[in-house]
């Protein structure tokens, strides 16, 4: 896969994400509120990230080179980050049962809770992976 091909996929994904999230944003704002800003925020971050990558690729003229951003070292760091994220996920899920023994499901819908835990997992995984790759 070349950098151009990956960039185009990211571009399409970011357009779909931004369109979908903002249509959900207005609907959710109207219907329920609370946590409605998470998806649009992620969409905006993803778009900015894609644009920054596009600029960096233009500068380095790597459009037609094949993607080479993983190797044995990055893989080992991915595994390490994945292991930590897995346990955070387990704790988060266990916490969900504890929380729902005290609060009503109407206060925080279980699906929203799962959504929050999933998004947190993705963010923690990416943050840990980036940290390990750049510092070890």
């Amino acid at each position, binding site marked *: 896969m070349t950098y151009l091909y990956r960039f185009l996929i990211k571009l399409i994904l970011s357009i779909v994400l931004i369109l979908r999230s903002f249509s959900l944003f207005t609907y959710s704002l109207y219907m329920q509120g609370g946590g409605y800003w998470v998806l649009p925020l992620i969409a905006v971050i993803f778009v900015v990230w894609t644009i920054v990558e596009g600029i960096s690729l233009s500068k380095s003229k790597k459009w037609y080179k094949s993607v*080479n*951003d*993983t*190797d*044995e*070292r*990055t893989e080992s760091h991915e595994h390490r980050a994945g292991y930590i994220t897995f346990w955070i996920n387990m704790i988060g899920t266990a916490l969900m049962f504890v929380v729902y023994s005290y609060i009503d499901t109407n206060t925080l819908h279980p699906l929203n809770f799962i959504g929050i835990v999933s998004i947190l997992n993705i963010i923690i995984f990416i943050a840990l992976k980036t940290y390990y*790759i*750049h510092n*070890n």
Partner: protein
Amino acid sequence: MGNKYLIFNRVKDLRTQNNLTQEQLAELVDVTRLTIISIEKQKYEPSVGLSIKLAQVLGTSVEELFWMKEGEE
């Protein structure tokens, strides 16, 4: 207190002798530039396969490129 074996290398010296940039060496051995930086800073110990590749590209033997020293843990 046990003894710990520390791995050292002369990747940076040989890379500069061969007039290669970190980016070029990374491409030649099929890893990322950050991995080359980590190896040169003695932060990362490469696998046997990568060590052999590095030795071949830099025109030396694995024994010449990497060595081990005993250190206190």
